[in-house]
């Protein structure tokens, strides 16, 4: 079976996010004064094949995030797994 995984990776709460700050500044300067806060992180989409069991996919993706995709020292991540057609 095939699975589509969506992963969102963000800097931890109180870690400085220079990108977010710059984007907020940019949006405010463009006139969007009501943008109160911006954080910028990473988004990934994975296709996982040949795995029959959603539990296994969950476990594997969590491991991948820990080992490679995210940097647990400064980042948090969340993900959703969804079964694919066909």
């Amino acid at each position, binding site marked *: 079976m095939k699975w589509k995984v969506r992963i969102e990776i963000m800097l931890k709460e109180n870690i400085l996010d*220079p*990108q977010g700050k710059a984007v907020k*500044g940019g949006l405010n300067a463009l006139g969007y004064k009501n943008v109160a806060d911006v954080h*910028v992180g990473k988004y990934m989409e994975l296709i996982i094949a040949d795995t029959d069991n959603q539990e296994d996919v969950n476990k594997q993706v969590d491991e991948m995030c820990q080992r490679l995709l995210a940097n647990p020292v400064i980042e948090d991540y969340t993900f959703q797994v969804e079964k694919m057609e066909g």
Partner: protein
Amino acid sequence: MKFAVITFPGSNCDRDVYHVTKEVLEQPTDMIWYNDKLDLSSYDCVILPGGFSYGDYLRAGAIARFSPLMESVTGYAKDGGLVLGICNGFQILLEAGLLPGAMKVNDSLKFVCKYTKLKVINAGTPFTNRYSKGEILNIPVAHREGNYYIDDEGLAELIANNQIVVKYLDDEENPNGSVVNIAGICNKEGNVFGLMPHPERCAESILGDGSKDGYELFASILDYVNKRGEKCG
């Protein structure tokens, strides 16, 4: 002739370009602050230098292109003024829509700083008239987002209009993975030119490996403007 060099917050090649136009080429040059909304019509050429405007956060050039001065630059370009974007300046011109296409991160995902061999494709622009078509140049690059992308349709148009000005010599010389080894392009009218390599870094033979190929680019602009002056006058 008179040059204008724009400083955006985070520009870091602004003084380098200024050094070349002012000290090496010995032409009057003004440094202009991004936040001014000036009339640029008294300048013969406006240069957007390299660097990391706004830290290159989000995308290189994305935030800088909304600077107040960019409105003036757009008007200036529409009126036929010469605009040169180097590296980050090129990225800003793309984001601003003054040149077609977009930049992706280098295929290597790494910043790369080294001399590259370029081939002149169009020697008929105001920026390249001292080169000859097919001439090989040695000009350094320094960027992490120089992987030029344009869709097939756009590419066909670039080719049809002779808008590809310089290419990396071949796939091996291509430091970033850009489409058909594009290193620099101009607009249809030929008055707006953007390129990833840094001509200001090879305008004096004392530097680095001694190439002076970048000097000729600035000298081309000077020649063009002087000739245009003669014609008008």
